[in-house]
């Protein structure tokens, strides 16, 4: 993690001129001999912190594990409350049922399409907006920045935007889920700060060699910004993957439902049961649904889990850059 490595290097540089007696406040790097001694008070403190953190982490993770276990457990096992962290009376029936449901697969394909096409367009338009704004020699850049920042502070709200989307005849098309969110002012600002970290001397040298703006952007800036493009791209992609309100708002056509919207329809059916369970009789149907519901959730989540290691790496960097202003 970013903070971990940074704090370690900070402590090793600080302790560079060996301090035999000094008890280090910062975590000791792994290469150095273990810590000198811990007072009993410290042992108690460490134990408390460690156990609190482990408990909190477990609570955080538990609902996911339980859902995963439910997806692969038999209905009787769920009904009798035997399922905690791992599947009981293992079955893949619910998963098969979900994956055999063509409407779920269809919504999965819609979401994949939306994520790929949407993210590509997002990136393209964010780059061409952020690059000119990163050029300090561009006249009128401040005016445009203000023009853009105002949209972050004030908006017309849901209804006027809906009417605009409607009057452009975007309702019930996938474009309604891509175009209104095409450029995020926030991401433009982050990308602009990324671009500004590239030394200006590079551009001056390129201009000397007769390199124009466009060529400089494509040949020099973009190849140097791989990490930042990945970060912003992941921001957009996870947004597309997870967004559901856009689909709820703009799409009626069941063939165009996104995975999250489809998931919502399935869950809404069973949510009704959950809140009204006190009134309804125990039905076998609900129990089967519990496992089915868990299976849909798993299907909607697995792709995120697959890219999660990359997400974490880049997102942490990206969210730090968000705090760098330029």
């Amino acid at each position: 993690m970013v903070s971990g490595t940074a704090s370690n290097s900070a402590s090793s540089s600080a302790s560079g001129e060996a301090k035999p007696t000094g008890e280090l406040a910062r975590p000791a790097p792994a290469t150095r001999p273990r810590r000198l001694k811990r007072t009993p008070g410290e042992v108690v403190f460490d134990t408390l912190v460690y156990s609190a953190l482990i408990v909190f982490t477990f609570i955080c993770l538990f609902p996911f594990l339980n859902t995963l276990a439910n997806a692969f457990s038999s209905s009787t096992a769920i009904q009798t409350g035997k399922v905690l962290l791992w599947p009981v009376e293992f079955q893949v029936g619910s998963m098969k049922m979900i994956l055999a449901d063509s409407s779920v697969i269809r919504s999965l394909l819609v979401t994949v399409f939306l994520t790929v096409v949407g993210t590509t367009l997002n990136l393209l338009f964010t780059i061409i907006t952020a690059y000119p704004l990163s050029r300090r020699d561009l006249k009128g850049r401040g005016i445009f920045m203000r023009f853009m920042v105002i949209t972050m502070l004030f908006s017309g709200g849901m209804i006027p935007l809906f009417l605009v989307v409607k009057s452009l005849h975007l309702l019930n098309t996938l474009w309604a889920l891509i175009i209104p969110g095409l450029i995020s002012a926030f991401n433009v600002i982050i990308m602009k700060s990324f671009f500004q970290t590239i030394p200006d001397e590079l551009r001056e040298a390129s201009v000397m060699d007769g390199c124009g703006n466009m060529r400089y952007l494509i040949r020099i800036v973009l190849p140097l910004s791989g990490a930042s493009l990945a970060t912003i791209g992941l921001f957009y992609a996870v947004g597309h993957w997870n967004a559901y309100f856009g689909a709820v708002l703009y799409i009626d056509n069941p063939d165009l439902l996104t995975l999250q919207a489809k998931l919502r329809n399935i869950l809404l059916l069973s949510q009704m049961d959950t809140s009204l369970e006190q009134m309804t009789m125990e039905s076998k149907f609900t129990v089967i649904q519990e496992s089915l519901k868990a299976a849909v959730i798993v299907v909607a989540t697995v792709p995120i889990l697959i890219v999660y290691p990359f997400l974490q790496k880049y997102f942490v960097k990206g969210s730090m850059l968000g705090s760098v202003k330029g």
Partner: protein
Amino acid sequence: MKEWKKNYDLYLLLVPAVVFFIVFAYIPMGGLVIAFKDYNLFRGLWGSDWAGLANFREMFSIPEFFRITRNTLLLNLLGLLVCFPAPILLALMLNEVRSRYLKKISQSMLYLPHFMSWIVLGGIVYAVLSPKYGVVNQILRWLGMKEIYFMADQTWWVITYTLSAVWQSAGWGTIIYLAAITAIDPALYEAASIGGAGRIRKIASVTLPSIMPTIVILFILAVGHMVSIGIEQPLALANSVVSDVSEVISTYVYRVGIKQGEFGLTTAVGMVQSVINLCLVVAANHFAKRAGGEGLW
């Protein structure tokens, strides 16, 4: 003039963004005139009759307006009290962890909910808390307690809403605090050690004061968002049984505006929210700057 010519291609690159922000940000702002109109879907924006302040008068006269405002403020206030300190506490704890593996693993796990959609999180919350088959009530029964209707009881719903927000955001929120902690000069800790400070004393006298500017700015910004509430979390967690506490401004605008076609009234409601929000953010920025930190702009 020469400048403009030399960089004409850069200005061309900005054209799509100008068009985009005009169409999808500034025209909707202009669309706020709907709030002053008796909007008729068939006659369109300019064909509809002016209604003056009738929509605003109606807004204050309907009982729901009081309710959705109260719910929005209540949920945000609880968020401020519970969700705001959680990442600070977690960051302080993570900072005290010496085992790199434990730190890394628990960070990975804590960040995870941030990457899930509210539909997935809401579905999981409903499943886990279900009175009959949910694992939480199962554990309560093992402990000999009665099951709790978490999502059907108003008080429990509010608590669940708040805690699920902690679940979603607390881990991710630690990043900014951990970054602030990393920037602390290690000499301060050494000085504290020489002065005989223990670990808790160091947290209280070095770590906390050092990250205080970050805390203050984030707090002020959080206050600035008191009247606005996203729609994805409330919509994913709400149900008809608890609508008295779960209906907030955003869900009301969606339900009554989009679904029932009350465009004028709900645009007025949304506009009041946007305007108060703008005032609060501007005020918050002002205070953040006065508190010695950097504002948003």
